[in-house]
């Protein structure tokens, strides 16, 4: 089965729509949303409604820290993120808020774990920055492959049977077979707010039969997404960072 995985959509309608179209064109049979549907972007209602519809037709979604902060105010966010959460909370209706609050923190499927941040303590929202962060997450699960997001920069880590780690920045469009002899942590880039210097939206496809993961970049209408953020009265930096990919 071909999975399409999306992380950190962040209410960016233009980016998410472009990624969904690209995933369907590549034959996606099941969609996985790895959290942070809202926050930062100007279209939270559309983003939540879209994921609600996808989940109703078989997609899997887990909760991210921004989704969580809509219902449970966080004291660890920076000022821009906090301002965006407060703005978003005022835009969502009760049903949309209940959907976000009801999302699971993790989901397991076959030999795969889906989580927004990492597996060792998912509700602490730690980042996977390097091989030691990745090792801590991989030690915490028995499952062979973990998919996560949160850091907005794509990365692919593996652990051998002797607990040796490798790290790798994936090349877009090149399939990598997740070999069965080792365990893997696939960190996805962000759909709605990439921070690796490339403004194109990021998502990944995973083929459960061939066990190949392919990271993709999708160009989208950045100007409109940024203009909508500015028009909404959200912090200007949230618009300015999109064309920079920062």
């Amino acid at each position: 089965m071909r999975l399409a995985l999306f992380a950190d959509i962040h209410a960016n309608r233009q980016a998410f729509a472009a990624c969904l179209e690209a995933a369907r064109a590549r034959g996606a049979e099941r969609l996985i949303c790895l959290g942070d549907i809202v926050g930062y972007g100007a279209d939270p209602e559309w983003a939540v409604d879209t994921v609600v519809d996808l989940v109703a037709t078989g997609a899997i979604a887990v909760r991210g820290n921004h989704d969580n902060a809509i219902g449970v105010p966080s004291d660890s966010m920076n000022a821009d993120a906090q301002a965006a959460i407060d703005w978003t909370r005022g835009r969502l209706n009760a049903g949309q808020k209940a959907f976000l609050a009801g999302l699971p923190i993790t989901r397991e499927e076959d030999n795969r774990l889906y989580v927004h941040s990492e597996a060792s303590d998912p509700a602490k929202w730690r980042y996977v920055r390097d091989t030691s962060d990745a090792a801590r997450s991989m030690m915490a699960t028995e499952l062979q492959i973990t998919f996560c997001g949160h850091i907005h920069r794509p990365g692919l880590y593996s652990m051998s049977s002797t607990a040796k780690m490798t790290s790798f920045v994936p090349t877009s469009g090149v399939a990598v077979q997740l070999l069965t002899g080792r365990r893997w942590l696939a960190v996805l880039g962000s759909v709605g707010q990439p921070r690796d210097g490339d403004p194109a939206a990021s998502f990944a496809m995973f083929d459960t039969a061939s066990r190949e993961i392919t990271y993709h970049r999708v160009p989208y209408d950045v100007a409109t997404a940024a203009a909508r953020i500015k028009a909404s009265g959200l912090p200007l930096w949230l618009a300015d960072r999109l064309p920079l990919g920062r």
Partner: protein
Amino acid sequence: MQPGAELDGFTIGERVHRGGMATLWSVTHPGITVPLLMKVPLTSEGEDPAAIVSFEMEQMILPRLSGPHVPACFGTGDFERQAYVVMERIPGQTLYKRIDNLPLPYDEVRVIGGKVATALASLHRQNVIHHDIKPSSIMFRERGEAVLIDFGLSHHQHLPDLLQEEFRLPYGTAPYMAPERLLGVRDDPRSDLFSLGVLLYFFTTGVRPFGETESLRGMRRRLWRDPYPPRQLRPDYPPWLQEIVLRCLEIDPAARYPTAAQLAFDLGHPEQVKLTARAQRLNRDSLSTVWRRRFNLGAVPPQPKSNVAAQLASSPIVAVALDIGEEAGALNDTIRVTADQVLSTSPSARLACVNVLKLNRLAIDRSHDEQGQNKHVDRLVALQHWARPFKLEEGRLTVHVLEAIDPAAAILEFAAVNLVDHIIIGARQNSMRRALLGSVSAKVAAEAPCTVTVVRPSRLAPQADDDEAADQAANAAATPPAVF
């Protein structure tokens, strides 16, 4: 595994080889006519963990490779059931078979080295660095092409490098290992050129340039200590060959050939190798040089992560096809402008100026008489003269006069044999003449294995007639990489 057993449609035959890391079985499969080998890693308790990791690398890399310089891959199985890779069985022996007969004749080693460099150029273009170039990983097809085998230590630019942190010590074959590998560098294709340099040195002198030491301490010496120049071991050693070998063995990768294709070019044209001080050396570097290197090791600035494809792209072989003669003057000036633009954006590019001395079908041997010889030399001189304004530093310019009945075919063959990346060629303006002779540039543009730029002296040219339009249409129909 037993002879007669079946695995994923492959029937196991005899055991061909049992090595330290893997066992090789002859296998067959209905519908596959080429002879096949199944490589099965040794994974039982107490085996070297490197066997597993290097097998994983080969399992990832081999199915992605193509071309005549690697064994074709027909299937893989993973560790969940039975790990294996099935590949084309290359008949014959590896180069290792030859090491009892060393040293080999210089020209034979030159030809072998050229074939291996050509194979490396193909591999590097596929974003893979071999990292274990040595006689036992090189075979040859019956048609002559070198085939590289054993990708267990290789690095693929677009795949995770499972060897990067698996072993504290660099893994590979000590006598052939490039010095930067000892510093943990695994992403520089010029490491393979160093290993090929060791092979060339060994095969021409019978002596390994850095001995057979396996200890890390012994291996580290190559970070500051250069080998004895081959001429000290064999006084008749050709200077051009020493130039090539010592350039491959430079400690700093930036001082080696920038690409395997450029090394193959020099091995294919020994008479045109630009001789530097390297070619004449009889002694190793002075102790003061060696000590300076040794105690400045830590001062080497960290290198940014290299990009194999970008490095190859910045070091193209550019061939310029030129007409020589009065009427070609204006066109050749325009070609020079175009070539200058290409060279100025590629600091490691090399330029091959090519002219075709057209042979008369009825008098093919004319070039062997004195008049023909003079004509040949005159044209070489003219090509040198044309290229002088580029002021290319040593070794970046070569000139070639090809003798052929069909100029386009000669240029195309030159480009294929010499791994040329970009051909620059002028289009004839005189349609009367082209009507008689056919358009060389159109044929080259349509059939070249690389990018082709067709140059016309735009503003000075006469109006295009029908023939010209037809010529342009032929160009436009050329393969996509062609540039006009």
